[in-house]
């Protein structure tokens, strides 16, 4: 092959890499902003001193309330406590009229996957951070990136486009669940999670 030919090949190769690694993710994922900004750090930090379980509760029947109800927010924010614009929107547009906040869920699993929070939290072995990282200390909510084709959040696949996770803690797909189950020697059959 001549130098010119090699140049076109290499150029094509490089172009494809650029498209595949840079342009493709931008096109594949649609960014959706949360309806409201929310600072976990304000609530879990020194100011309010709340813990995860204060809002994200497991009911008596074992059901997990991932997104707290309006009543829970309204307990403190029946009127504005601070001066932030976000809280103003919360009180005026949601708590006041009693309208549920349409939060966008980052880790919605498919219908064929059964994941009960209650069992995973009941004996205290697993901490929230183990699966949810430092989300509980975030100062704002990032936009949710939704795969335009599959409809699932990018957090489920993993932020790394290659799908490879060096520390095994990327994404929230079945392989991550299996690795943790193996590590904790909690081996289950298929029917346990795919009822």
């Amino acid at each position, binding site marked *: *092959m001549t130098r*010119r*030919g090699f140049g*076109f*090949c*290499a*150029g*094509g*190769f*490089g*172009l*494809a*890499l650029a*498209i*595949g*690694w840079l342009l*493709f*993710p931008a096109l*594949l994922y649609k960014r959706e902003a949360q309806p409201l900004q929310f600072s976990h750090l304000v609530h879990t930090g020194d100011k309010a001193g709340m813990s995860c379980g204060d809002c994200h509760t497991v009911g008596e*029947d074992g*059901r997990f309330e991932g997104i707290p109800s309006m009543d829970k927010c309204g307990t403190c924010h029946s009127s504005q406590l601070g001066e932030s614009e976000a809280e103003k929107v919360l009180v005026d547009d949601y708590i006041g009229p009693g309208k549920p906040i349409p939060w966008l869920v980052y880790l919605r699993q*498919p*219908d064929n996957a059964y994941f009960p929070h209650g069992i995973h939290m009941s004996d205290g072995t697993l901490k929230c951070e183990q699966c949810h990282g430092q989300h509980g200390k975030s100062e704002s909510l990032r936009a949710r990136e939704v*795969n335009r*084709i*599959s*409809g*699932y959040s990018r957090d489920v696949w993993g932020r790394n*486009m*290659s*799908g490879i996770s060096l520390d095994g803690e990327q994404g929230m797909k079945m392989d991550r669940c299996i690795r943790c189950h193996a590590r904790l020697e909690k081996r289950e059959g298929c*029917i346990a999670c795919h009822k």
Partner: protein
Amino acid sequence: MKVTRRDMLKLACGSAVGLLCTPVPWKLLDDSAIWTQNWPLVPRLPRGPITFRFSTCTLCPGGCALKARCVSGMPVSLTGVAGHPVSHGVLCPIGLTGHHLAYHPLRLRRPMQFVGSGDDGVLAPVSYEDVLARMAAALGSRSETETVAVLDQRPGRAISDYYQEFLEAVPNGLYLNPPSRECSTAARLQELLGMEAPLGMDFENARCVLSFGAPLLDGWGTPGRMFHVFNRRQETGLKLIQVESVQSRTALQADRWLPIRPGTEGVLAMGIANVIISEKLHPAEIAKNAVDFAEYREVVSAFPPEVVAGVTGLSAADIVATARQLVENGPAIVIAGCDPGAGPLGPIPETAIAGLNLLAGSLNHPGGFIVRRTLPGSRAAAAHVLADVPDHSIRLLLLDGAECGYTFPWSLVQRKLVREAPLVVSLSPYMTGFAAHADCFLPSPAHLESLQDTLNATDARTSSYSLASPLHDPVDGPREPAECITQLALAAGIWKDRKESAADLLRRRVQAIYDSKRGSVFCPPEGPLKAVSDFADADELWKALGDAAVWIDDDVVQGAPERFHLLGRLVDAQKTRIDTTPPHSGALLVLMPAGWRAALGNGTLPPLMSKLYQESGLRSLAGYASINPATGAEQNINDGDRATIRTGSGTTEAVIQHDPSVMPGIVLVAAGPRPNGTTHPAGRGDDGVLEVCDVQADATWRMSPASVQRV
């Protein structure tokens, strides 16, 4: 620089290779697959608010309360109701998955009929009016001796009364109940006492229960009640003696298991009576109150323990010990059981067994058989015995679709149908079990799809009543049996202008309960009990029952006749089954069908129930037979072999399982259910093992001499 085609080709090749080194093709492939899973045609569970609703299970006569977790109003899981006074928080595996029955593969949503004859018949849709016309024609074209009959597997409901009202208005109308039910002991006691009032069993206060094959801990009465009673045995001192040829789940948990030779239960009962009388263990007043005590004593004198031991295979010491335990560890309840697949013991053994309750002084005493009050507004069921119906006399037969969980050979019914063009119409929502034998199908709403009523189990100490409120949205097509009866009666000119709906029948019942001012109502989830007299009006009571409350009668024991018989049908004992020759004693093997209540009868298993059968083998499917390993060695049949089982009535095939809990000499064949909860795919019911059971003169089919050969 001029770019040539060759340059573009090289660019394209480089891009292609480069693309393979990016996530693009792999991600697109993966995401496309996921995209197809989200197409609109793929059914999805609804997402929405989670609510809880209460209702009652109607899949068997147990009457267990259930709590449904619903998502966007659709029930997704069921549990029992903790603290419920009837079911004590228990729901059996069938009930737990009952909400799936609306999606059963053999569920019917519109009228159907078989076109063509015999096994070549093809199932085709038909209009409701055409089926009604066909039924009315059959009704009107009967000869004087031909009858119209309704086979009601769950008597006592409001619709049961309606069936009887219809049949009374029709010349030669027959109201039939199935031959296999849990109330056979009570029925024999009623014969001996000469009364019709219902009898309940006070297990809560009993100290000894002698069960002849009743699956008390494996699907009997209301399971929650039985578990509640028997789980407290340590503190109450209750002893269970199970007389059974198989070490069943009940026998395993009993305090004593008497492994009796099959077919000799009546002989054992007479032997026990012999001991009680000869040792004068019975209360003194029994001799006075039993009008035929002298004759009875003479009959049982032919059954001393030594003779009975030789017949039954038990030891004389065990027989004597059982008799003594029955009386000395009283109060006692003696039950003639009924395997859901094998059917009743027969009227003679049942009478012998029922008589032991009277001999032990258990009638109308705490811990024994209790005469309870009837449900207000209900009529005494005047059911004809199927065995007594003349052969080839039924022109039109309606099969009510309610579940009773017990099965019997269709041949018992078949022989009663007229030879030429009988018409069998099924009102069941499913084309399974007996329904599959029908010519036409007018499906009723499926389980939990319409308002139904359910009353106390037959062994309940007090009457109870509840409404099973629907959890599923109604479906177009199915119609209530009450509507079918009304339309048929109007079309045939039997009724002129009756317009009662199914809900009207239920309201009539509730009104009667309210008017009686008897009993109290438990409103889930936690009660408390509210007296009926505290309800403002019948509408308030109707609303409470519609919200899955249960009405429970006051604990008032009715009077019983002072004088009674002990012999009853035993006067014919010499001519029938109570003799001292073991039945089928010359037979190589004895075939006995068996099954689990609510998995038989109509045989509509919810699809999720595959875990208990196909996936785990905890229960046997139809097509499986169990034999003792010693029998297997004798017959040269290994575990897992396929074998042909031959009786005088036919041949069937089954996969053999070696099971040491089965007595040697017995082939225990599962009477159902079929794989995947389905039935014969062509729709013409295949009774399986029941087709090859020999039906005796007393209409029992429990035992058939059989030979088994490896295929």
